[in-house]
């Protein structure tokens, strides 16, 4: 049986002390969909991403991936279950090259004995991993810096390397935390292209993002969070006309017509 939803988030709640960051958050992601997760700063997007990927435990509710409860699993088990993620501000090892970090993300056969005695299975796995890493580094334009220390490449390149690492684990769903923030515009369009190609190959993608151009270009659907609640679940082109979204980004001012003059990037991009 194939589950109708790839990801199912049901009444998820999370509080840090008295600060209730997520309250009864529920949404679904269908297989093969690209969903944008939006919301002003502090709306709970990153916390939601962390709870789904096992970096934060949830207080209530459930998260199901392909019909299997994953909210009790630890982070590495969730990766093994098929969800890989990237970080908003990826930091990379200083003593490892870009290629080596990518290779490290290939998890199979990492036992001591296999590489101690150079078993054939381990050698073959190593060769496959190298091939896969080289192909992904090439696709995400990191081939020219593959021998640089991973900590020394630019912030945008680190984001790409984060995506390479996520893809090395052969995930069926990718969760990206602001993949284009601080990335050069040329590189941005490359990321768009790469994500679209992945999606055409069947990858389900959830993206936390502020850039409305990017959202409109890439996402099929948008979920907007505000103060721990979902306030909208709509197509990207419907965002600009959604009153609750405007309220979330602009506060009560959005109701007044004069607010158009001071509208933030969401409004302007949305209207463009």
């Amino acid at each position, binding site marked *: 049986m194939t589950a109708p939803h790839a990801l199912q988030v049901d009444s998820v709640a999370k509080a840090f002390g008295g600060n209730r960051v997520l309250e009864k958050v529920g949404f679904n992601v269908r297989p093969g969909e690209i969903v944008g997760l939006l919301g002003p700063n502090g709306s709970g997007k990153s916390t939601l991403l962390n709870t789904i*990927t096992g970096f934060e435990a949830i207080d209530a509710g459930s998260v199901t991936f392909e019909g299997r409860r994953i909210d009790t699993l630890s982070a590495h088990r969730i990766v093994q279950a098929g969800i*890989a993620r990237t*970080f908003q501000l990826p930091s990379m090892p*200083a003593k490892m*090259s870009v290629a080596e970090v990518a*290779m490290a993300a290939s998890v199979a056969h990492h036992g001591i004995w296999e*590489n101690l005695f150079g078993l054939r299975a*381990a050698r073959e796995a190593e060769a496959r991993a190298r091939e896969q890493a080289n192909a992904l580094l090439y696709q995400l334009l990191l081939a020219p810096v593959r021998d640089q220390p991973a900590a020394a490449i630019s912030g945008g390149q680190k984001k790409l390397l984060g995506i390479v690492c996520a893809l090395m*684990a052969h995930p069926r769903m990718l969760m990206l935390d602001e993949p284009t923030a601080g990335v050069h515009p040329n590189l941005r369009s490359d990321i768009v292209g790469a994500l679209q190609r992945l999606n055409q190959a069947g990858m389900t993608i959830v993206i936390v993002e502020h850039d409305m151009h990017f959202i409109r270009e890439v996402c099929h659907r948008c979920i907007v969070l505000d103060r721990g609640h979902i306030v909208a679940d709509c197509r990207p082109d419907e965002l600009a006309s959604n009153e609750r979204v405007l309220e979330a980004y602009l506060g009560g001012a959005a109701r007044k017509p004069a607010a158009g003059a001071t509208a933030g990037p969401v409004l302007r991009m949305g209207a463009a």
Partner: protein
Amino acid sequence: MFDFLVSSLTFGAIFALMALGLNLQAGLAGLLNFGHIAFAGIGAYGTGIAVQAGWHPALGAAAGVAVAMTLGWCIARLGKQLAADYWGIATLAIAEIIRTVATNELWLTNGAQGISGIPALFDDLPGKSGALAFLALVVALAAAAAVLLRRVAYGRFGRALRVMREEPKLAACMGYDLMSLKSRAVMAGAGVTAVAGSLYAHYMSFVGPDYLLASETFLLWTMLMIGGIGNFSGVVLGVVLVQTAYTLVPFAKDAFGFGSDIAGALRLGLIGCILLGCLLWRSEGLLPEKMRKMP
């Protein structure tokens, strides 16, 4: 003179084994194990207790390795929530507890008296060839450990350890179980070090609680830091340098007419100066860890 040289080299090779075990944990996995000498002590006591009980020493060595690796597993899982530096303090405390137990449990370890009469290996060989055969054994073991651990370091397991050391969150994102990586690194280090401890007991024909002094752990750390933590060639260089400094002190004692107490202080002072110099001018050691170029 010849005996002195052979004995210095033997000690050096035994310390090299212990330092290589520590480097797997501290250098590759970034685990600040300040109780590393406990593993050597357990290896030594395993041999000693087996001899005392009339068993074959090899059985004792095997038991010592098994107990040390079990302890390693426990230490690695100790305090899941502890930050790296607090974990380091906990390892120091555990080693001290084991030393205190060894000092006080007369029935098991013969207390502060220690266990003597542990047979030397290759004792039946004529003349000096027994000592040479033992030296050859420990050098071969240290060399094999260096080669194999280096291979682990640059293989997939070592890559995983190095990502965990520098970016634990990224390692978790890659799908690595950090607790399992940590356990396996500490257990492997513990096994190698327990073998060294057992050999040490054979060489000295004796094991006592002084083997477990925290200063021994810090001597190993000094070797790592001088040579280059994370780099296996560097660790071997560190062992050679520290061991050479130790070896030279008796000559200085004779040449300048120092007393024995001053010679002891001179030994520590010399190591301290080398360590300080390294920290000031070569903070990553004489042979820093190198980035590996992937084919």
